[in-house]
């Protein structure tokens, strides 16, 4: 599926919730689906530090696609990462680089990505895109 198709799917999934508690319950459930980063990759180098919670991110490049794995010590962050990976993992560097992640705002999670939130999510998206740029660059050399 393409990035935007996935995003639209997520937006639809979320549209059934009219209550923050249900939305968060769903995100908590999603956290369990996260493709967890291998424990040997949970190293300093792959950590993205927020003030409150931490995020680990790793990326592999195979067959023209990037596969991300990640983890966080906060469940909601993990749930949101799970969504981000659904959207961006298994896509080409090119499309990741150019992705406009409009679903975040649409499902009401934009503020989780504000720079003041400091939960590492904003930095994580940056890092995901940096991986895409790096692999794209390698590819085109």
């Amino acid at each position: 599926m393409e990035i935007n198709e996935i995003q639209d799917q997520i937006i639809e999934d979320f549209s059934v919730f009219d209550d923050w508690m249900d939305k968060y319950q769903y995100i908590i459930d999603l956290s369990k689906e996260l493709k967890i980063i291998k424990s040997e990759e949970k190293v300093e180098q792959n950590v993205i530090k927020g003030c409150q919670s931490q995020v680990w991110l790793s990326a592999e490049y195979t067959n023209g696609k990037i596969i991300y794995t990640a983890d966080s010590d906060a469940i909601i962050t993990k749930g949101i990462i799970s969504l981000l990976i659904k959207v961006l993992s298994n896509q080409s560097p090119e499309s990741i680089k150019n992705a406009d992640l409009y679903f975040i705002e649409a499902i009401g999670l934009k503020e989780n990505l504000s720079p003041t939130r400091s939960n590492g999510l904003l930095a994580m998206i940056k890092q995901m895109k940096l991986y895409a740029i790096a692999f794209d660059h390698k590819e085109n050399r």
Partner: protein
Amino acid sequence: MLDIQKLRLDFPILQTKIHGKDLVYFDSAATTQKPQVVIDSIVDYYTKYNSNIHRGIHSLSQLSTQLYEDARETVKQFINAEHNYEIVFTKGLTEAINLVAFSFGETFIKPNDEIIISAMEHHANIVPWQMLCERKQAILKIIPFDNDGVLDLDIYKNLITEKTKLVSVSYISNVLGTKNPIPEIIKFAHLHNVPVLIDGAQSVQHEKIDVQKLDCDFFTIAGHKAYGPNGTGVLYGKEKWLDKMVPYQGGGDMIKTVTLQKTEYNTLPFKFEAGTTDYVGAHALATAFKYIESIGAELIGNHEKQLLSLATEKLSKNEAVTIYGNAPQKSCVLSFLVKGAHPADVGMILDKQGFALRTGTHCAEPIMQYYNIPGTIRMSFGMYNTTDEVLACCEMIDRISKMFQ
């Protein structure tokens, strides 16, 4: 009894809506909200009296100087200091401790001297001493606490040696809520002629403080945590110490005479108030202290203790909740964790329901290291909180905790 509903009307921000819900503000240990009289006192100042002090000759400057010195007198009375020149206005509690760390340190601390703090201190009462000890090759010693969050006084008494130059501990822990046995700590230190600094960040807003009765050598106050404005703080110091200490910052007003070769410093308290002070802030802080007095520190403290008991009782019933800090003498804050959830998870969901609780390490990482936790969720109380708010929050925490099981 306090008429909380009436009192709440004094705090305009309490009418705020958060995500469409009524704001329930349980973050007063981080900063309190401000009553209208305090806000008005700032507006009034800038509208009618503002002028630089330094005892200028023109009327506005005279008036402004008067208001500033009146504020000092108010603070003096509020904490019952002996002299008003023992009251130094600072930009905050952190600065007050740094001032002592520098000025006491430069004056009295030599290599291998020892300073004692506790393991439950806020970073503001750890880092300045670490920095001083590094600069002076002095040694920082730590009073440990037990699992309930109670300081070990036996160990404390053994820590004091001939080399001990200062003890610095908090009145109330901003994480564990422990009310430390300050009179005992001070008495023992004084037996060995060791002065004691009290981190009073969580103090005057909850109970009447009498620095002469405590007999502490230094007492520090965070204005913004005591219903006063941001950027204000108080250092109380006994004359005998302040007088001997070298100045902290250099500049206007802290000098008697300046030549390019040599400078003679001013008398107390001006020696420690370099530059244009925040005289507006000082006036607004004095207004806040008067407001606390008008409500009654004891009534406020009793009310808050009721809230703490109620919250403790309710949360204790939830098996997924662990409370950190179970000292018999406790006040103003309640730290806890929900099984399976990061503190930020809980804080975030609570926020969506209008409950403002702080999550994280509360600038007291050694406490987190002790319990080996990433942080806590902290409910903290101000005079304006109600039992209904506590009940609603505890119910919400019950609901949230189920989501993570």
